[in-house]
């Protein structure tokens, strides 16, 4: 028997809400956050849809009460807001009381400021402060500062779209091995021209609302978000008499060893990740009550992931859905926001609908959940599959 890894707090900011409550309300009301891009002046304005967060940078700076001289990128701002909510909800008064760590995921980092001031860096001294903020590790340092973390393990993980799931996995291991008593894990990524243009060049952006697992899916919608969980050891939970929201029960990571961006035909990496997570959780596939799929709505991902489901679950596929039609694909943050959604599913015994779905895929007989469903949910399996073949699965449960 390994030691337990308790989730005692969580925070989130996404296109469907600025905190956990707002996200929950939108999920329960089947209300999408996808729309036309407003804050970024891109050539592709009219041919893409995105999941953009309502707050402007200056509003976020206000929330965090930052001085005007700050050099926070949008990624850092979003990350700090979500991480602070997580720590507050875990009712942590002294963050340095226990051996505490921060593992934050990002792929975009401070890219938004770099592209904004690209032409001005040379002449305009007032924006040069953002040059320092470009570094991928900068947003993590800023989040640590905001939380008041001192002398802690603080690290940035960068494994594309599975980054935040890997942050959770690593955090859980550090708790289990006793290296840390408490760890804040998650990720943050903001929208940027950098990613919009890149994904556009890969021709996998839909010009309309994304439709995961639909035969006529046209690609993904990019989104921006940040989400963090507070993980604590059994000892801390006991000593502090903590309310436990859920447990991190299992996790697995495997490489698809197939292609830089494409998933293998039969979802080799995803299959291995799910199998390993089940093994760590010591659960059989039939014990899973809900699967929160990666489901990006690209032709390639959904086909490959669906085949992996068949390999893991056979004919007994549990209820599943992708929540990307709510938030868009939030890249390195995806595993974090979907972890928060998974915990909410456990807390409220619900399965989320896979919005926008119309036509079953011909490749297999898998139909996602179409309506919000009230039923007992004791275990949730969440997938995050990234470029570079990096496939991760995390299993959350009500009971230890």
């Amino acid at each position, binding site marked *: 028997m390994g030691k337990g890894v308790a989730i005692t707090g969580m925070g989130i900011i996404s296109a469907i809400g600025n905190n956990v409550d707002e996200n929950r309300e939108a999920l329960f009301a089947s209300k999408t956050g996808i729309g036309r891009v407003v804050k970024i002046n891109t050539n592709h304005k009219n041919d893409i849809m995105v999941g953009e967060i309502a707050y402007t940078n200056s509003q976020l700076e206000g929330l965090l009460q930052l001085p005007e001289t700050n050099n926070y990128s949008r990624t850092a701002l979003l990350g700090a807001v979500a991480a602070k909510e997580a720590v507050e909800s875990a009712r942590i008064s002294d963050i340095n009381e226990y051996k505490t760590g921060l593992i934050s995921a990002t792929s975009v980092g401070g890219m938004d400021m770099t592209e904004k001031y690209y032409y001005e860096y040379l002449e305009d001294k007032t924006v040069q402060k953002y040059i320092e903020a470009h570094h991928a590790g900068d947003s993590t340092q800023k989040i640590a500062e905001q939380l008041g973390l001192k002398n802690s393990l603080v690290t940035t993980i960068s494994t594309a779209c599975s980054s935040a799931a890997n942050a959770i996995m*690593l955090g859980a291991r550090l708790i289990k091995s006793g290296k840390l008593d408490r760890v804040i894990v998650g990720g943050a990524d903001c929208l940027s021209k950098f990613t919009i243009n890149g994904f556009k060049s890969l021709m996998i952006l839909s010009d309309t609302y994304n439709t995961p697992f639909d035969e006529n899916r046209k690609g993904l919608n990019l989104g921006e978000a940040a989400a963090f969980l507070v993980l604590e050891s059994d000892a801390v939970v006991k000593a502090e008499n903590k309310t436990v929201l859920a447990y991190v029960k299992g996790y697995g990571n495997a490489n698809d060893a197939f292609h830089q961006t494409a998933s293998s035909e039969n979802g080799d*990496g995803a299959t291995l990740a799910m199998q390993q997570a089940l093994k760590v959780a010591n659960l059989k596939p039939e014990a899973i009550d809900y699967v929160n799929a990666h489901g990006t709505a690209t032709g390639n991902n959904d086909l490959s992931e669906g085949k992996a489901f068949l390999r893991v679950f056979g004919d007994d596929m549990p209820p599943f859905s992708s929540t990307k039609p709510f938030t868009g694909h939030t890249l390195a943050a995806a595993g974090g926001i979907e972890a928060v959604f998974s915990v909410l599913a456990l807390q409220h015994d619900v399965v989320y609908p896979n919005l926008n779905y119309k036509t079953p895929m011909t490749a297999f007989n898998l139909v996602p959940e179409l309506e919000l469903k009230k039923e007992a949910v004791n275990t949730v399996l969440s997938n995050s599959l990234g470029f570079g073949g990096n496939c991760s699965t995390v299993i959350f449960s009500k009971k230890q």
Partner: protein
Amino acid sequence: MENQFKISSYCHVKQNKISLNGKVLFSVKPEESTFLKQAYKALNVNYSKFFKMDKLSQLAFLAADVLFQYENISEENQENIALVMGNKASSLDTDRKHQDSIQDKTSYYPSPAVFVYTLPNIMLGEISIKYKLYSENSFFVFENFKTNYFYNYAQSLIVDNKADKILCGWVNVDDEDYEAFLYLVTPNGDLQHTEQQINTLYNELWTL
């Protein structure tokens, strides 16, 4: 228990030199810019997809290939070798290239082949694809090489039986500056897998 594992081989790449276990394997003059391409030929890498990779992936791939050739690790064996790497600059070198292509108002043609490499973990994917490694891999961004971090990560993979061997190290590219230091953690080898040993080996980068 903790110290049963060893370091069986290690590779340094810097200043247009590649060394294996402390001995220079290949080098060209510091001013030559085609070092990686020449090394590819001299070391019989024989994998044409190498030329499609960005500099960061090429560097990691070459260093991994040197170690795997030496260790007789091939794709046929499909070994359970986890990859744990980190660097300081993430994918900055290629990020700049992609950024330049989208900022260019007169010739706006972002390249998918460039964008693919704007993630540092793609180098782990490249190694996994070549060597059919379906194992765990992870990539971290640090201000400096963090010995205890790599040591602890490798130890936890061993203790949890997640991998039989672990390829660890540091691969960084920023403009003209680059360096790679990879080492293989295995059950057998001459060097102990300890923080002190890893530190000693890492520091050899600067005297290469």
